[in-house]
């Protein structure tokens, strides 16, 4: 806090300074509040827009029943009379698809990226280490549409040729068509997409573990793997949580790439089908929004799509707060205590 002791003739000038200081504070504060207002506006607007869809369906909105794509088409084709709008929707396949792709990618990615980060920090030959780090940062910044392009042009045909036999197709032909773009490809590409971000964050944190801790352990005769696993990885737990939260947010919101490779069919893959489960198409919420972008101007479909957006918004807000809370909970073990 600035406190002034203006001397003699400088009093007037100092007063002027104080006034301009207050003006600056007001201006900066106003801009910051503009951001806040926009966000609150976003939440309010999206929910008001989405309300008719929720209120027409009640809790059944989240349930199962019928073919979700058919329901979306019916909503799109509903009569122009506002009283006759069709809202019926059972969004479970989409929610389930979102949970499967996001959860699968984050789980696989988390294990993989912790191991890979340990590798980069501790076990990689020095030259490889120096090469890997910038490449990881580069891949973290690659636009998702590029991953989607590789997915749809390379991985999907590969999966179609390698795993989808005639018998497999026939085994589910009355339920769903298999054409390669599937849950497995979606999870795979999503994992490849979020792993660089997690690795970059975890590597940074592992590097920041105080040397004394690891060297002390090593001096007691603990081997290198155990030093990393029991000292460093434990010390950076809050950062790992933060990385996972960030990755989940990115996976949850990924729309374009998933609409390219996941098969874009509102279908809930069925675990009873065994391996075929992984090869069945699905479609997460975010991809549904992109796929139905042309229908936004039809009022009832628009409201339904805003309902999807509202669910995504709630999940991401919840995620930010969960991440913040976890970081607080873990603060006592943190070397990054102040980072949250």
């Amino acid at each position, binding site marked *: 806090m*600035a*406190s002034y002791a203006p001397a003699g003739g400088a009093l007037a000038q100092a007063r002027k*300074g104080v006034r301009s200081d207050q*003006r*600056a*504070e007001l201006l*900066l*504060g106003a*801009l*910051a*509040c503009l*951001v*806040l207002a926009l*966000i*609150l506006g*976003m939440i309010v*607007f*999206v929910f008001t827009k989405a309300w008719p869809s929720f209120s027409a369906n009640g809790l059944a909105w989240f349930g199962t029943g019928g073919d979700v794509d058919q329901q979306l088409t019916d909503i799109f084709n509903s009569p122009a009379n506002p009283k006759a709008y069709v809202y019926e929707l059972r969004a479970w396949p989409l929610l389930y698809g979102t949970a499967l792709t996001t959860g699968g990618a984050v789980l696989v990615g988390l294990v*993989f990226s912790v*191991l*890979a980060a340990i*590798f980069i920090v501790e*076990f990689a030959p020095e030259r490889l280490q120096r090469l*890997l780090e*910038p*490449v990881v*940062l*580069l*891949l973290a*910044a*690659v*636009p*998702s*549409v*590029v991953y*989607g*392009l590789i997915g*749809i*042009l390379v991985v999907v045909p590969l999966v179609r040729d390698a795993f989808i036999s005639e018998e497999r197709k026939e085994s589910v032909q009355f339920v769903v068509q298999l054409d390669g773009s599937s849950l497995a490809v979606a999870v795979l590409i999503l994992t*490849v997409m979020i792993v660089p971000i997690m690795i970059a964050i975890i590597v940074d944190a592992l590097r920041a573990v105080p040397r004394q801790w690891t060297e002390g352990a090593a001096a007691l005769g603990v*081997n290198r*793997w155990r030093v990393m*696993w029991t000292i460093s990885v434990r010390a950076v737990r809050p950062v790992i949580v933060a990385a996972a939260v960030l990755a989940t947010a990115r996976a*949850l*919101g990924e*729309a*374009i790439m998933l609409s*390219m490779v996941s098969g874009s069919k509102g279908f809930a893959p069925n675990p009873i089908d065994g391996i075929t489960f992984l090869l069945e198409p699905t479609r997460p919420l*975010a991809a549904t*929004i*992109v796929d139905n*972008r042309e229908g936004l101007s039809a009022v009832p479909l628009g409201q339904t*799509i*805003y309902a999807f*957006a509202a669910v*995504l918004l709630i999940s*991401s*807000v919840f*995620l*930010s707060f969960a991440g913040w809370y976890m970081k607080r909970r873990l603060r006592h073990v943190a070397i990054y205590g102040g980072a949250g």
Partner: protein
Amino acid sequence: MTAPEPLAATSASPPPAPQRTKPRESASTWPLVDRIGLSLCWAAGIALCLVMGGILAYMAVRGVQYLRPSLFFESPTPEQDQSKSGGFLDPLLGTVLITAVGTLIAFPIGVATAVWLNEYRRPWGLARAVESGVEVVAGTPSVVLAIFGLIIFQQSYFGFLSLTAEGDAVLGRSFFTAGAMMALIALPLIVGSTRAGLQQIPDHVREASYSVGKTKAATIRRVLLPSCRPAIATGTVLGMGRIIGDTAIVVILLGASLQLQSVGDVPGLSTLKGSGSTLTSYVFNNSPAGEGQSPEKAYAAAFVLLLVVVALNYAVNRITSREAPQWIR
């Protein structure tokens, strides 16, 4: 009487200094669990190298294979015959334009927010709310931001900013509206980076400035902001990277026209009000997922995108590796 014997013997002929054994690096003596962990670690590392190398090599090969200089200078045309469908001049311009609009909006707001959060922070509750607000934007999917943008900019009083259909319906689609929403995805990066920069400046620097009679505003303007310029630049470049890479906002808020479409006759402004495409939406539309079936051009455009990302990464590296002023440390 016999007890001191060994002592005397040792003092008489001290044993040779312990030989320095070579540190045993071999993991073969480790417990099994640790060896499994180590091998998993190596497996993950090798898989990482293979996947990353594979992606980059594949994109480079395809890019070099399909990229032609003429692609940069030709406008795309909706043509079935791929030899006549033109290049990606317009999407390239679109990317530049949307990045410029987004950065121009996000930069001042982001820096102001960061300064206010760090230096003023009163009232405390409001500051805390703004902080979590920025965090919420950072986590919000860009599709959600895109369709939120549609709600805002389809209000009739924002009609002057975007395309309008016949009958005064405001479509809410233009470079300006897409850029404004892009600003929101760049904002958290700018705020975060600027705050990190401000936090690194020790308090004695601020106190020194106050003690020579500078007001807080003058301190911020003349001392704090100049010394965290690299941090601000890093945040801005990262934000630009996010804007360039985003597809969902472009696809929803910019429409799908291949060429730049101007609205009205004021040069510059008319383009901003018009619709168009960017490199990302060009890739999307030319992939099998979009309408145009021309993977070659999609690969070429994706390769250009990758080059842009490489350039931005290089810029960030250059900025962050520059040395901080002496007095900061």
